[in-house]
């Protein structure tokens, strides 16, 4: 498979895969908290748009789901160790739950499932591939997990066609906003030097050294 970053997004985490350094743990946790803050910030900006979209055609609400999946994608792409995606997404969910969102603690279940969706894709590739396609697959997978969970928790009475539409929108949004968006975000962060201790930072410097 060839995609723009196949040659350069393959740096594995230093040491063994499970040899979490302090900076790995602290960064995954801090990204989780920062996304929790960002979720809250977006809420202030987005509440209006969300309601309009949902009232027009409810399954399209899935389209707005992508942003909430991005924490896991970014955590996974940056730290590149098993569990980092789940940890980042669950911590972000915990923070938004503590701030009082409309889903209560079920947001923790959502966070766990979304993180697992990302983790599944990264694990299948043995934590060796972190390119654009991988990121989009991970985002889409997170969207599928979350959508299926919402079928049972929020929309069990929707007709199957609409539920599938919701799933499709959610996966699409996951791939584009969380996957593509997360990948672009990590690239941008690598350019700032803030990721020098991680794979994306090292790859950035390799690209510019050659």
């Amino acid at each position, binding site marked *: 498979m060839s995609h723009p970053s196949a040659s350069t997004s393959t740096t594995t985490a230093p040491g063994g895969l499970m040899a979490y350094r302090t900076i790995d743990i602290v960064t995954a946790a801090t990204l989780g908290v920062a996304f929790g803050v960002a979720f809250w910030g977006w809420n202030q900006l987005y509440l209006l748009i969300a309601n309009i979209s949902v009232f027009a055609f409810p399954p399209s609400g899935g389209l707005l789901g992508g942003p909430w999946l991005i924490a896991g994608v970014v955590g996974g792409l940056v730290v590149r160790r098993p569990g980092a995606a789940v940890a980042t997404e669950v911590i972000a969910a915990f923070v938004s739950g503590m701030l009082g969102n*409309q889903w209560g603690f079920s947001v923790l279940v959502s966070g766990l499932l979304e993180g697992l969706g990302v983790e599944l894709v990264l694990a299948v590739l043995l934590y060796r591939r972190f390119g654009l396609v991988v990121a989009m697959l991970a985002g889409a997978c997170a969207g599928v997990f979350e959508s299926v969970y919402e079928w049972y928790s929020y929309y069990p009475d929707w007709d199957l066609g609409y539920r599938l539409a919701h799933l499709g929108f959610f996966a699409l949004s996951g791939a584009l906003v969380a996957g593509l968006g997360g990948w672009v975000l990590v690239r941008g962060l690598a350019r700032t030097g803030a990721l020098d201790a991680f794979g994306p930072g090292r790859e950035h410097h390799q690209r510019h050294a050659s």
Partner: protein
Amino acid sequence: MTRPEARQHQLRGAVLRANPLVLLAAGLLVVPGSFAVRSLPIGLVALGAYLLAGVVLLPSLRPALGRLGVVMLASVMVVYSTWLLGGHEVDTALTAGVRVLVLALPGAVLAVYVDPSRLADELGQRLGLPARFVVATSAALQRFDQLGQTWQHLDRARRARGFGPSRNPVRTFGYAASLTFALLVSALRGATQMSIAMDARGFADAHRRTWAEPVVWTVEDSALLCLGIALAALPVILYAL
């Protein structure tokens, strides 16, 4: 002999004193429990039971009412969408709305009373989660206020430079993306400094570490946990009947 008001005072303090694991469990148990809300009467009874427990046990109803408002919004959206896409059946739609209230309200309200630091102690000592992960997460959570302030400063700096949110969704999206990016840079810089400070205090090799404070589990915690289980089981039992 206990005077009634003293007993009431004790009851109302229970949630404040409660072990954060109990609060978390009560908020999470209701998630599977709510799946059993298959008819309006089951939903109303389950919701009523939670409301009753809230009125008796919460020290103050004000934060609860604030969070009820947010959850109501989600509930209304679900009622509408279920009515529209579930065959225009009012009864089904209302049931779905009540299900969301049962699902979300207990956790949303109990979150007000969870102390993250105490929760970290419990997760590390009682549940035996890996200590370094728990401690680092707890440390990162201390950064919440600081990151919230950073968000405000970023917003200020953008407005000063002539950019701000507007009614145009595309522009607002770009604005949110710009703020988020800058927030993450700031968070990552902080994370690097924090790791340096933590490693200088021996965190890197702390695979076996001790905890300065013990965790306690009281009879009251057991009672509250039983209540949480009973409340979550109520719709399941009603459905089975």
